[in-house]
């Protein structure tokens, strides 16, 4: 099969499956880069007064770890799966604008390489934390050109996401096969629709903030260096993007969990209509909670209480989503496969990450949590736990669809056990480090933080390798040359069955290739390198 591999075809492809694979491979590459940064940080923090990394290197690594993980790993990994699966779930031949899709991907790859490349420049890259707070991000306090390039890399990424979101929204709204009504639209596709709708509103404020920052840094304007509200202006623009971004990262995860639960509990999603309404409510409310990141900036009392209330309000539909997922298991026929285990773990982490988030919604409680390791623990439970676990579940779940191979189930369960235990040993101690400030590169022994930090580092050295082995399992299975059947999970969703009309009785042993060809009806122009839409990777 390697004989058919053509680099030129991969470089020029506009096929949604190939672009999806490119997204996934690139996101995994950045996951390994950003994960290694995380391991370096944990090594530095393992013991007090450690000199392994100097403060400037540590600061750059903190900044890159955060930016890469949130924007260049979790967001595109979801987008990669969406690229592959969404057109199959709705019976579209491809995305609405295949070339725009390829453009999105290459912009994403280039922006990521640009960002990582900044650390090799003389003077280094951005040293501000992923939030890039003003005026630390201005030329006066970060004179290195790497910081300007990092801002441009982020702006490019925002362009890439905006193109993707337009593409996905158009595809899902206009290119559904006959018979895919809004009621029959699969949950994963719904979650991607919500994600992309949110991205369309969340990224422009970031892009505009970055353009202002770039003019500050290059042309000498004073948007963010001004003492007349420059810092607050940046925080408002950043968090108006930053909070929805959390949901942009988590929504595909919830969609994947729903699909996996339905397949392995052999049961329809609990109250699907209410689930979708709750999804929409979270999407809408998430645009109105950003100020809870700014409780300690001295905002006036009424604003404080309003945003505290919206934050509490968003937790109600979100809790509904989690309960809907758990109740899907009720009276099902549950099979504990590896994707199922990852999804159950994701429910655990989202619950813990969620309730700690609710505690932070109270301004008075947030006065202690703000800027401390408690916050670090909270968002790692939501992102490194829920999202990463669910995305791994998604990779495992759709792996037979994408490659016609099955991964090794026993190996997958062992690596799951190690990654789940390692994860909790790594992040749970953070909830006891309420007085330890974020992003400090070292601490003294008298603070009493040493033992918890050491535990956390031990966890990191279990979690990191376990995630690598998880990915290795997939790669090894791909190298093996035995194809599995086309629907090994006996899943009922349309990307597996190809039964888009929903009218005819379920065909037995359906030939996916033909079923998908029947329902094309796409307006996209066929291209030379068109490959058959049959689930083959190469």
């Amino acid at each position, binding site marked *: 099969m390697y004989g058919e591999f053509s680099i030129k075809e991969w470089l020029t492809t506009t096929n949604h499956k190939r672009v999806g694979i490119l997204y996934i491979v690139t996101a995994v590459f950045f996951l390994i880069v950003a994960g290694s940064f995380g391991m370096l940080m944990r090594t530095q923090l393992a013991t007090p007064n450690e000199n392994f990394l100097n403060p400037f290197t540590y600061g750059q690594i903190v900044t890159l770890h955060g930016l890469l993980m949130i924007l260049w790993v979790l967001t595109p990994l979801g987008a990669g799966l969406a690229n592959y699966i969404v057109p199959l779930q709705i019976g579209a031949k491809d995305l609405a604008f295949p070339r725009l899709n390829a453009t999105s991907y290459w912009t994403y790859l280039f922006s990521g390489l640009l960002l990582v490349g900044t650390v090799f420049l003389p003077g280094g890259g951005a040293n501000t934390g992923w939030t890039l707070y003003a005026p630390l991000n201005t030329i006066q306090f970060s004179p290195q050109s790497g910081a300007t390039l990092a801002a441009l890399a982020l702006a490019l990424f925002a362009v890439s996401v905006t193109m993707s979101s337009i593409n996905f929204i158009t595809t899902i709204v206009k290119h559904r096969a006959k018979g895919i009504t809004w009621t029959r639209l699969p949950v994963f596709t719904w979650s991607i629709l919500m994600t992309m709708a949110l991205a369309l509103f969340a990224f422009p404020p970031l892009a505009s903030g970055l353009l202002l920052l770039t003019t500050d840094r290059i042309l000498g304007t004073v948007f963010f260096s001004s003492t007349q509200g420059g810092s607050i202006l940046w925080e408002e623009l950043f968090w108006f993007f930053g909070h929805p971004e959390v949901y942009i990262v988590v929504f595909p995860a919830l969609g994947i969990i729903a699909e996996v639960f339905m397949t392995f509990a052999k049961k329809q999603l609990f109250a699907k209509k209410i689930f979708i309404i709750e999804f929409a409510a979270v999407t809408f409310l998430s645009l109105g909670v950003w100020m809870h990141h700014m409780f300690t900036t001295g905002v006036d009392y009424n604003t404080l209480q309003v945003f505290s209330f919206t934050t509490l309000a968003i937790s109600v539909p979100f809790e509904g989503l989690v*309960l809907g997922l758990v109740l899907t*298991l009720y009276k099902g026929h549950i099979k*504990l496969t590896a994707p199922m285990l990852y999804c159950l773990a994701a429910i655990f982490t989202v619950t813990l990450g969620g309730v700690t988030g609710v505690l932070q919604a109270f301004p008075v409680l947030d006065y202690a949590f703000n800027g401390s390791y408690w916050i670090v623990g909270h968002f790692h439970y939501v992102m490194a736990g829920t999202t990463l676990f669910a995305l791994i579940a998604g990779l495992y779940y759709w792996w037979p669809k994408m490659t016609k191979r099955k991964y090794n189930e026993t190996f997958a369960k062992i690596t799951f056990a190690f990654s789940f235990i390692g994860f909790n040993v790594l992040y749970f101690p953070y909830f006891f480090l309420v007085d330890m400030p974020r992003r400090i590169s070292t601490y003294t022994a008298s603070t009493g933080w040493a033992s918890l930090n050491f535990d956390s580092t031990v966890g990191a050295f279990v979690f990191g390798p376990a995630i690598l082995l998880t990915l290795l399992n997939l790669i090894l299975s791909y190298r093996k040359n035995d194809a599995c059947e086309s629907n090994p999970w006996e899943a009922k969703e349309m990307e597996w069955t190809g039964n888009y009309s929903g009218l005819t009785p379920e065909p037995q042993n359906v030939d996916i290739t033909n079923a998908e060809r029947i329902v094309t009806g796409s307006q996209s122009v066929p291209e030379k390198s068109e490959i058959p839409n049959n689930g083959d990777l190469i």
Partner: protein
Amino acid sequence: MSQPIPPSAIDWNNLFNLAASIAIIATAIVMAAMVYFVIKYRQKKGHTKFIQKIGPSKSRARDALIFAAISIILLLSLTIASYRLTPNARFPPPVSESLVVKVTAYQWAFRFDYPNGVNTTGICYVPANKSIIFNVTSIDVMHGFGLTDFRVKIEAIPGRYNVIGITTPSLDGNSELNYTIRCYEYCGVGHMDMAASLFVLDPTAFNTWLNNQTTINATAAGG
């Protein structure tokens, strides 16, 4: 000798304990349900049929509404508790009854200015049993002014004064109390070293110190 817990920290601990207990119970219920379902409804031989629906959809909608109602009641009660507590830190007693200390954060230290012109760097002395108002600003980048022992924190923002109030505890037999002030906002390569000590002194000792400082400062300025 153990230091007394400041009053604001006692309020905070009470609210935290209440909210955290509810959070732990909620998590435990969800997790218990999940684990129970996984064990009870595991797949057995012959379970091949896909289950479309359980029970009429009306009752499922009702269940969802009940869940929503329970969580709204919980959240409202917590919100009320939060509303009642927030003013303690944000609306300290009037300036006439308080000691006002201006805090200037810079890379990478805190400077404290007292009303009579005395200033210190890295150490802040305050009298016991007194309301203290910190008027916090920065002269370069954003910093955080955090007194975790008192459970209060406010950002130091260039061009802006943010107010945070604490009430110092009584000495309880100690000669002085010592708390740590830390920067909680990333402010560059010296972030990890940016801290200061807050010493709570007996009011007489505090006044003696403050007046002596004026003399020393004046001498220093004169010399």
